[in-house]
Every structure is written in C-alpha cells, then in structure tokens.
C-alpha cells in the first residue's frame, strides 16, 4: 500500500486523457445546441435508433465478426504450428509475422489498393495465369480482407504465447494414459489455450468493429461503419452531439463484449497479452 504514490503519474495521466474526455463525450452526447450554449436532450441517442443507423451498427458488427472468425480459423493453426514445432527457425517465423506491424498501418492498407484495383497486381497475376479477373476492391470482401490482414497478428500472438507455455508433461501424461493426438488436442491443448483465444478474439474484434480507415480506403466510402459515422460527424459535419452519442454507444458495446469475454476466460486470464 505504501507504494501507491508511485501510481500517481499514471493517475494524473488517466484523469487528463481518459476521464475528462469521456466526461466531455457524455456531456456532448446528452446535449443539443440551444439559443445560448447547449441544453439537455436525448435527441442524439434517439436519432441513433433510426433504422439507417441501426443498419450501420449491424454492418459493423457483422464485418467484425466475419473478420474475427477468419482470423481465428487462420490464426489458430498458425499459432499451433509455430508453438509446437521444433523448427529451428521458429523465431524467425514469429518475427516475420510481427515485422509488417512495424510499418505504418495506413501505408499497408494503401498498398492493398494497388493490389486489388481492376488493373492492379492481383488481376495482372490472374491474367498471367490464364484465370478470370476479379473485382473485389470497393466491396465488403475487400473491407474484411483489410481487417484480417491488419489484425491477424493480434490473434496469432496471444494464442502462440499461451500454447508455448503449456507444460509438456501434461501432454505426455495424457498420451501415457492412452489418448490419441486428436483427444489430446481436444481435451488438453485447446482448453488450456482458451485464455489466448479469448484475448485474441477481443483484440481482433475491437479494432475491427471500430475501424474507419479500412472501410474508407478499401470500401470506397460505400460501407459506412460506426467508425466512419463518428469520423463524419466530427470532421465533416461538425455535429459533436451526435458523434459523441455514437461513440458512447460504441464504448458501452465494447465494454459489454469485454465483460462477456472475461467470463469465458474465467480465472485463467492473464496468460494472454494483457
């Protein structure tokens, strides 16, 4: 308890950069411009309930769920192979996964524009192979692809770190007791890796559901997500009240999903990245 003072710089930081902004968001979301200053109103939240905005919310959640599912299906085996193999260049493989993250997120997303364009690299390759061309830029698939590409490491790394820490003697014990490799995976490895899976899912779902850059660049401004709606209200329309209301709804949504997730993770959390 005596070392509590050591936390004070962080406390100050938190108050200035987290608590105050959240209070401001609450203030703006619950008020509308009046004759002088702003007056209390629920109009902003009421507006968000209109079907057109519910559609945006649904679209955001849908695309984020799809991207998260793909990341899991692709990421788990990858993490498993990385963690269980005795491949001597294993660390290099892990590093290859991380290296792209050193580059700016925006640049990497821009690169996909050049790849996916009608006359882009992908179609040049397909034509060369004698295959039909595809037009996926500015579609929902392109947005999902952008999400998977950008957020896959967030799925692989926590699962990898949990899998690497599993005590090998537990697996040997199971094998000694006659379990085949499928049973070992199903009854031992997968349940033990759950905290990593949960943390991976959370870390992919959250940035995916709030992104606005990926949907704007790869979706061509057609697939407005919650993040785009918020950006539009603040940067182009200047309606801070409505923008704040959407942000608040989004925050509540994220906290709810984190609460659900941490129930799944139970006592074993802490093994992941946080």
């Amino acid at each position, binding site marked *: 308890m005596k070392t509590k003072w050591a936390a004070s710089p962080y406390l100050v930081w938190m108050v200035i950069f987290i608590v105050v902004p959240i209070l401001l968001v609450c203030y703006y979301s619950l008020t509308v411009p009046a004759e002088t200053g702003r007056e209390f109103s629920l109009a902003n939240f009421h507006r968000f309930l209109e079907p057109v905005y519910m559609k945006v919310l649904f679209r955001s959640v849908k695309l984020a769920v799809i991207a998260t599912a793909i990341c899991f299906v692709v990421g788990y085996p990858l993490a498993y192979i990385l963690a269980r193999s005795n491949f001597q260049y294993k660390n290099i493989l892990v590093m290859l996964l991380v290296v792209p993250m050193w580059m700016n997120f925006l640049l990497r997303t821009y690169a996909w524009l050049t790849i996916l364009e009608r006359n882009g690299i992908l179609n040049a390759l397909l034509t060369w192979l004698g295959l039909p061309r595809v037009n996926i830029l500015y579609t929902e698939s392109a947005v999902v692809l952008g999400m998977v590409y950008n957020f896959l490491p967030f799925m692989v790394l926590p699962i990898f770190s949990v899998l690497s820490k599993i005590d090998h003697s537990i697996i040997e014990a199971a094998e000694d007791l006659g379990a085949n490799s499928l049973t070992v995976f199903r009854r031992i490895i997968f349940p033990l890796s759950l905290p990593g899976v949960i943390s991976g899912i959370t870390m992919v779902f959250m940035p995916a559901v709030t992104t606005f850059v990926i949907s704007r660049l790869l979706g061509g*401004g057609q697939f407005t997500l919650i993040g785009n709606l918020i950006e539009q209200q603040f*940067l182009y*329309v200047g309606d801070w009240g409505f923008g704040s209301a959407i942000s608040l709804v989004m925050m509540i949504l994220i906290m709810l999903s984190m609460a659900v997730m941490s129930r799944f993770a139970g006592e074993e959390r802490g093994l992941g990245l946080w």
Partner: protein
Amino acid sequence: MSMRGDKKPTLYVYNWGDYIDEDVIDRFEKEYDVRVVYDTFSTNEDMYVKVTSGGSKYDVLFPSDYMIKRMIDEDLLEKIDLDNVPNAKYIDPRFKDLDHDPNNEYSVPYMWGTLGILYNKKMVSEPVDSWDILWDPKYSKQILMVDSQRDAVGIALQKLGYSLNSVDRNELEAAKQELIKQKDLVLAYVVDEAKDKMIAEEAALAVVWSGDAVFAMRENPNLDYAVPKNGGNLWFDGMVIPKTTQNKELAEAFINFMNEPAIALANAEYTGYSTPHMEARKMLPQELANNKAAYPADEDIANTEVFVHVGEMLREYDRIWTEVKAY
C-alpha cells in the same frame, strides 16, 4: 516555435489538396525569408469544421463562394486591405463584385471552374450531356461519385430539375432517395483520388471539378470532360484571411505574391484550373488556353448555377449526406 531556434515568421496556409504548384511555396519562403506551414483539406466542409472547432491558427484559407459567404456571415474573416495587395489589379473584373463578396472586401479570387463529368471515351459510347448518365445501370460499378455533400446533393437536385441551392424539404428528400438509388451503381465515393483512378482507367465516369479533369486529360488522352447541359455548377474559390490569423500583413503579402503574373501562371498551369488572373491567362500555353474544360465557351456554361450558402437548411444537407453514406 521552431526546433531550429530561428525566429523566422511563420505563415499557416490551409488549401485544397493538389491545388498549388508547390514550388511557389518555396519561392515565397525564400523571397520573404519566412516559414510556411502548408496543410490541405478535401472539401469546404472539412475546412470549415477544422477552422471553427478551435486550436488552428491559419492565416490564409482557400474556400469556395458559398463557404466564403458563410464565413463572412459568421464573422470568421478579416477584411483584406487591398492596398497591401496591389497585384489584385490583375484580376479580371468579371470575377469581382460576385454575390458572395459584393465589395471584394474579404476575398481575392484564386481559381474558378465547373463541376462536371470526366469520362473515358473508350468506355462510354453515348454523348455525356446530363447528370442522368450517373444513374445508368449500364455503368454499374464504373461510376466514381464525388464525396462532398453540397456537390453530391446538388447533382441529385439538378437531375430532378430543381435548383442545386434548394431549401425545400420535399425536394431535398427526393434528392436523398435519388442518391440512395444511385448507391448500388457507384464504385466508390472519392474526391482527390478520382483523377488518378480515371487516368488508370479504373472507372468509366467520375464527377470531378474542371481542373482535375484538365489534369487527367493531359495524362490520358482517352478522357474527356463535359458539363451537363441542363445544369452543372460554376464555382469561384478565393483566398481569405480568417480571424485566427496572427500575422495579417504576411497573409496579405502571400495573397499578393500569389497574384504576381508568373506565380499565378505557374499555379494555373500546374493545377489545370481556370485562372481569373488576366496576365496569367494571356501567357498560358496554347493547349491549356484552348482547353474547353478549363476555359469553356459562355454558352457551354449558360445553365450552370453557383452555390449559395443555404443557412439553417445546411443541417438538412448534413443529415441527407450522412444518411446516404450510411445507407
């Protein structure tokens, strides 16, 4: 302010993306021994929100007609002392005393132009003379729509036969439905990217401003530009000094510099937009001076409308565009 510790005066300029010959900025910095901080925006609306939400300290902005009027009405602009801008004498009288700044007190014209359709002659067979072609299912997913609310809503209004400055709720609602109908056909909503996409032949039709069209046509001879016969938009961008300025004299010096004949010429040549500067106009290379997209004949723009600030109804425009994009 500077990390290098020098005390050079600094000028903050906020302009449209790709709307100046950037060498001009270097030349101004050298000649006046100052530092220029140069930022860009892509629509009048984002410029307005950034400038009014506080924290910015711009000295010179480049808004369009209706936005200049709005900023004058909201008391956001300084009056420009034309004694400090002697080069304003080169501005063609046609571009003076315009409705948005009747006494030329707040703005000095920079460029003018039209909003129209840039199209690829190889991909579009029929004549392009109306906004209707942007709703033709034949060009599904080959249309680049402009991601700018007054322009987009204005196009839909004109297509329906209304004024692009409509403040009638029913007309605006009809325009919104029209834009939602169009959404399935649109490849992407873009502003500055449109010309690059058209040069690369990624789309058949794009709604662009005339200068972007001139720029793109220079790069790809398959492209052509048309202003719809039944409408179109004529616009004037000016240089203004916002109240946030901390160095009005330097801002005026910059505006004056921009109107030096050689500088105005460099900007007109680089951007492809139409210059209101009489001397620069005379010195333009033939191919640009004769370019119909940049310097249209009077009858080609006879039916165009100029945007007018719509006042309180602007919220309705905001709502419509938000809903169209969200749909």
